[in-house]
């Protein structure tokens, strides 16, 4: 036993003398696993790190001032504020209705519930462009809802309402999908306890239901924000992409790119990427809280 042990320990300590961290690394990771990890890192680098690096470099290539100037242009400023407005509006609406929808799906028994549950996920599977087309057909000048609104002087398609509607559509499932499992897991007992302690339905919702789903809800909202910021296809179709009017940040980037204004495209992209990164960090924090809440 010791005769087998001694030489291997000797060789190990020789490696240790050379490069302590290499030895530590080599000891922890056998070769097969090493290859696997290398492959994953390489794949990750090509697909994610490299493009991000290019983006940062591109934004810097024509100088910081050129980028800042491009971002300060009226069209760019308008595009970003439009994106912000649409995001806030659709997040607010989807938070309220998504929560109500989740409550209905998790708590009520009615026929057709399974169907509704399936339909909630529809925006995930329908291409955003198709969604945009649906809205054009429904709310356009020839659509039956569009005609009704236009007779009242409200323009939906190629205007802000249509863009908000399209964004709401593509982000519809996020809040509901996050909140339903949390609600199911909490069960009814805490709410029943609140009722017996004298709380009416409204108080029970605000003081018991909402606090117990808060992290799931926050996670759903974060996903909604991320998706709303980056939405392109559906908004492209319903907005008509009119510069300075119905052009959101993503549409603006596309415009700048096709017009060969690379500095502007890169700078705007970088802003969106940074926003996404912040959201990502926030999401990870949320996810931890959601999971902690479950145990």
């Amino acid at each position: 036993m010791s005769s087998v042990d001694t030489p291997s320990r000797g060789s190990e300590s020789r490696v240790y003398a050379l490069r302590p961290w290499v030895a530590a690394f080599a000891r922890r990771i056998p070769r097969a696993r090493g290859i696997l990890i290398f492959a994953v890192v390489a794949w990750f680098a090509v697909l994610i790190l490299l493009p991000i690096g290019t983006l940062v470099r591109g934004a810097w290539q024509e100088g910081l001032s050129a980028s800042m100037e491009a971002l300060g242009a009226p069209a760019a400023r308008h595009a970003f504020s439009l994106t912000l407005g649409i995001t806030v509006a659709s997040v607010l609406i989807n938070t309220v209705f998504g929560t109500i929808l989740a409550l209905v799906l998790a708590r009520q028994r009615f026929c057709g519930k399974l169907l509704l549950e399936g339909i909630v996920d529809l925006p995930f599977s329908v291409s955003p462009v198709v969604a945009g087309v649906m809205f054009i057909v429904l709310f356009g000048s020839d659509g039956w809802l569009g005609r009704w609104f236009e007779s009242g002087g409200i323009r939906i398609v190629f205007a802000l309402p249509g863009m908000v509607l399209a964004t709401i559509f593509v982000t519809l499932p996020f809040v509901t999908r996050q909140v339903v499992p949390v609600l199911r897991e909490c069960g009814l007992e805490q709410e029943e306890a609140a009722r017996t302690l004298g709380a009416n339905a409204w108080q029970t919702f605000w003081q018991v239901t909402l606090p117990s789903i808060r992290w799931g809800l926050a996670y759903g909202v974060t996903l909604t924000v991320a998706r709303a910021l980056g939405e392109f296809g559906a908004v492209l179709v319903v907005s008509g992409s009119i510069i300075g009017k119905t052009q959101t940040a993503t549409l603006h980037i596309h415009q700048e790119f096709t017009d060969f204004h690379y500095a502007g495209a890169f700078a705007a992209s970088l802003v969106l990427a940074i926003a996404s990164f912040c959201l990502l960090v926030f999401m990870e924090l949320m996810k931890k809280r959601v999971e902690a809440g479950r145990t």
Partner: protein
Amino acid sequence: MGILVKDVSKRFPPSRGEQEGHLAADNVTFAVPRGHLVALLGPSGSGKSTILRIIAGLEEPDTGEVLLDGQVVTGHPVHQRGVGFVFQHYALFKHATVEKNIAFGLDIRKWARRNVRERVLELLDLVQLRGYEDRYPSQLSGGQRQRVALARALAPRPRVLLLDEPFGALDAKVRRNLATQLRQLHSEFRTTTIFVTHDQEEAIEISDQIVVINRGRVDQIGTAEEIYDHPSNKFVASFIGNVNVIEGYVHEGVLWLGANRAHMTPVRTSLPDGEVVMLVRPEDVELTSGVAIDGLDGVVREIRYRGDRYEQEIDIAGLTVRAVEVKNRGRAAVRHPGQQVRVRFTRHRIFDVEEDHAAIRAQLESLGYIE
């Protein structure tokens, strides 16, 4: 009258594949005098929890009404009934501290902040959890959580306290401890209390009165002694305590037991001819070595030592009867398997088989009361 449940029935809507829904309460009527502590005792699925939830207003009955302190509350929303409810799985607000949990009912009633704090501390003292104010439920043991739940339910001084299998999720030692604590709290506050349990020992230990529920119906109401000594039917007799269920036959006023009826000493009865069951508690089976004039001939088959008593299985011409003899009673001499004994039933009850005998047997078997 503290709580009056009058002709309450409740049938749940049928789930998929069922013809008709489960009848959880079938014309249930009982009363709990103000200040009493009553146990709703029954096997699981007997409808006792549903009855409790109907009193609280968490379920609406199909028919009948519930009165609290003489006032009809059927149809009143839960939050206006002034009941305290303790759930089997505590149902504490996970996102709130112990203090916030207990204060919930007081904050809802808009108590002044100072009074709330005072009341919370008072209750924490009562359930011996002073110093745990800032803990979250996840940082407490099961027994501690249930004590917080009890404190939370008692805090707004409810008219009645309802406990749904409050100790069901706890281990035996904690359970006994909490049961004693509940008894003490009750004797201090005299809040009219109903607690649901499937554990007959718990019911006997804690309550003033027991309401035995079986298949959605009230089978018997009485004190533990009344129910133990004078059970109203076979189910009650078997559900409360251990019992020997002996099948027999009455012919012209004479009772014959077991399959080999000819070997039995006849017992006279006023029951009409037909199949019957005789119930005998193991402690009412008297064994004597040597020769006695009356009684049945039996053979000791198995002896189990239980510390304070001997449990024995006696074979009487093919019938197996369990007998319990308390140690140190002098005559409870140490027996051995195979020994001949004389068996006498000092007390027994005979029920005729007007109900579906097989169904009752199956139920008792599923409960583990007979083998």
